[in-house]
């Protein structure tokens, strides 16, 4: 048997030594595990549909330069933090010093804080399911640490922009850690963008701890270019009566993979996960979600929509695991998929594992095309065919886009969707 492929050698060496000592040590330790780590293949169950898109070459192993340009202020309203190639740009960031709220780059933590953080990093993820998160832990060069004291409320969304400059091949390892204390509230936007055309890898990890009664809303906007392979993981742990809401809007690329793991560890916790994915050309996008119902009386609600045009390929895998003690769990998962061309492919798989007996668990998945009867109805009123297609495609995702609680993100999503429509539906 052929040995499973491992990471090209260049990926094994971290650059950027400007982190506090405890984090450098953690990174080094994680790095030793990378040497023999098998990369996902077609035979790896959770990468079955996507491994063929993962193409890591030696020249992508080096870190993209962190000091290339000084960012200008971001064109987003409210609090913002800019990262370039995984390293924070303080000059381009704007957020106030608010009582009870700390927003800091990993590089600015003192050794004690860094030691405490090092103990907690990776503890919110199931490493077996997110193999490549280890790579991030071995390679991150900076990160964003957000900590909210009990009762602290961030009064506006915090917009984090992760940009990579792909002037030459390389990779970047954005990292975020959120510690939302009891009854605190936070809305955060993670926006991933790129410039340049060289083949690069963006490998992200975001961890969120949601303490008792806290409420965190997390928006993920993926808009990187056709040269960017993106493998990201988000791990969330929720305590009693907490709430976590996630909105993902993703546009395809050569490889787009996001794993979202939510653990409902305290009674009465609830999460809501929404996702919209749009792919075209030969693009790919794969969302894998896992909701672990560990404590009793928790609710989860999940709604994902994929739209695939041309020869693109979208994947959704939704796992719900209801543990033995999680009585009175309420889980509702819904995935609908729209194929805009005969050459497009969508794979969807609900995975339910239920070990408690008193639970409500509903799931549904459909794959379809635009309804011809509806198109005919619209064009019979004089509406052009292109516009009819746009209306019906938007109808498929309107509800989810409207639920995104940040206006500037909704606008960005609409702009990108309109570009998608321009390219996908021909002018009559």
């Amino acid at each position, binding site marked *: 048997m052929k040995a499973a492929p491992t990471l090209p050698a260049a990926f094994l060496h971290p650059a950027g030594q400007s982190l506090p000592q405890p984090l450098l040590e953690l990174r080094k330790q994680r790095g030793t595990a990378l040497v023999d780590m098998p990369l996902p293949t077609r035979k790896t169950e959770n990468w079955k549909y996507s491994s063929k898109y993962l193409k890591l070459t030696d020249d992508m192993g080096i870190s993209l330069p962190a000091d290339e340009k000084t960012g200008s202020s971001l064109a987003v309203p409210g609090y913002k933090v800019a990262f370039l190639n995984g390293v924070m740009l303080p000059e381009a960031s704007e957020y106030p010093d608010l009582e009870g709220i700390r927003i800091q780059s990993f590089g600015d933590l003192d050794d004690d804080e860094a030691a405490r953080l090092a103990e907690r990093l990776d503890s919110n993820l199931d490493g077996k399911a997110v193999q490549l998160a280890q790579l991030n832990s071995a390679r991150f060069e900076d990160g964003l640490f957000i900590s909210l004291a009990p009762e602290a409320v961030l009064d506006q969304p915090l917009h984090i922009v992760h940009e990579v400059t792909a002037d030459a091949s390389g990779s970047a390892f954005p990292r975020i850690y959120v510690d939302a204390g009891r009854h605190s509230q936070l809305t955060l936007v993670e926006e991933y963008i790129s410039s340049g055309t060289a083949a690069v890898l963006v490998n992200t990890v975001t961890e969120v701890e949601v303490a008792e009664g806290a409420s965190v809303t997390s928006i993920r906007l993926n808009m990187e270019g056709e040269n960017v392979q993106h493998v990201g993981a988000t791990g969330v742990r929720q305590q009693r009566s907490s709430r976590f809401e996630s909105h993902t809007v993703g546009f395809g690329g050569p490889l787009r993979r996001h794993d979202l793991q939510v653990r409902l560890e305290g009674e009465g916790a609830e999460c809501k996960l929404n996702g919209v994915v749009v792919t075209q050309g030969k693009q790919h996008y794969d969302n894998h979600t896992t909701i672990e119902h560990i404590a009793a009386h928790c609710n989860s609600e999940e709604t994902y929509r994929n739209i695939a045009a041309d020869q693109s390929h979208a994947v959704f895998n939704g796992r719900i695991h209801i543990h033995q003690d999680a009585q009175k769990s309420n889980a509702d998962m819904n995935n609908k998929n729209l194929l805009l061309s005969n050459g497009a492919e969508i794979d969807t798989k609900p995975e339910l594992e239920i070990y408690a007996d008193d639970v409500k668990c509903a799931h549904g998945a459909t794959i379809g095309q635009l309804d*011809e*009867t*509806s198109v*005919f*109805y*619209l*064009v*019979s*009123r*004089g*509406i*052009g*065919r292109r*516009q009819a297609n746009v*209306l*019906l495609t*938007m*109808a*498929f995702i*309107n*509800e989810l886009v409207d639920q995104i609680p940040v206006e500037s993100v909704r606008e960005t999503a609409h702009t990108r969707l309109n570009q998608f429509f321009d390219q996908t539906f021909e002018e*009559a």
Partner: protein
Amino acid sequence: MLSIKNLHASVEGKEILKGINLDVKAGEVHAIMGPNGSGKSTLSQVLAGNEAFDVTDGSITLNGENLLELETEERAREGIFLAFQYPVEIPGVSNLQFLRTAVNAMRTHKGEEEMNAAEFMKLAKEVSKQVDLDPSFLKRGVNEGFSGGEKKRNEIMQALLLQPQLAILDETDSGLDIDALKVVSDGVNALRSDDRAILMVTHYQRLLNHIVPDYVHVLAGGKIIKSGGRELALELEEKGYGWLGIKDEDAATDAAN
């Protein structure tokens, strides 16, 4: 205005229309009656340009222009309007957005300026009152969860907004109670004008008490087998389709209506 000559159409290889001839002039109201399955909806859909039906022979012209060469949306912009027998539900597209998009598509075609949201809202509210639909229906998805009667009123509302040259009403009377029938007929009568023609497709004659047609045609087995004035409808009501030698399972219910 509309001239149909020797029209043959089939669906999935099965011939449904077998040589239809019909001339409709501006200002006229024609009723097309016939038992279920005789091809009334097929004729309506073919006029509107539904590609599920193949026209295998014959011609259709509108004001001398070959309709068969036009796409559905082009026919609509030339003034063809079909009120569907089964209006389509489109969740996720609001009725208001749908109506405004349609009205603006027509205006753009005519070289007129588009209506903005506020202007259109005002107009839509007025017209919805005319068909006795609460303005809250404008916010709902297109026909989403509408009752049968509400869907039919929504169709008439569209006709009133789009002001077509030729309005084809496919069983717009079916499934309506007496009050709704009155509302819908008032709407249709409001559409009547010297430069507009109306083609009313109906199984029953009761609508014709409210909207008096100039001509009545009987469609059976894909052909118009008899044409006459409005007295033909009364005769049909009295004697049923059997009188013309047509089998009709619904004749009994028809007479009961």
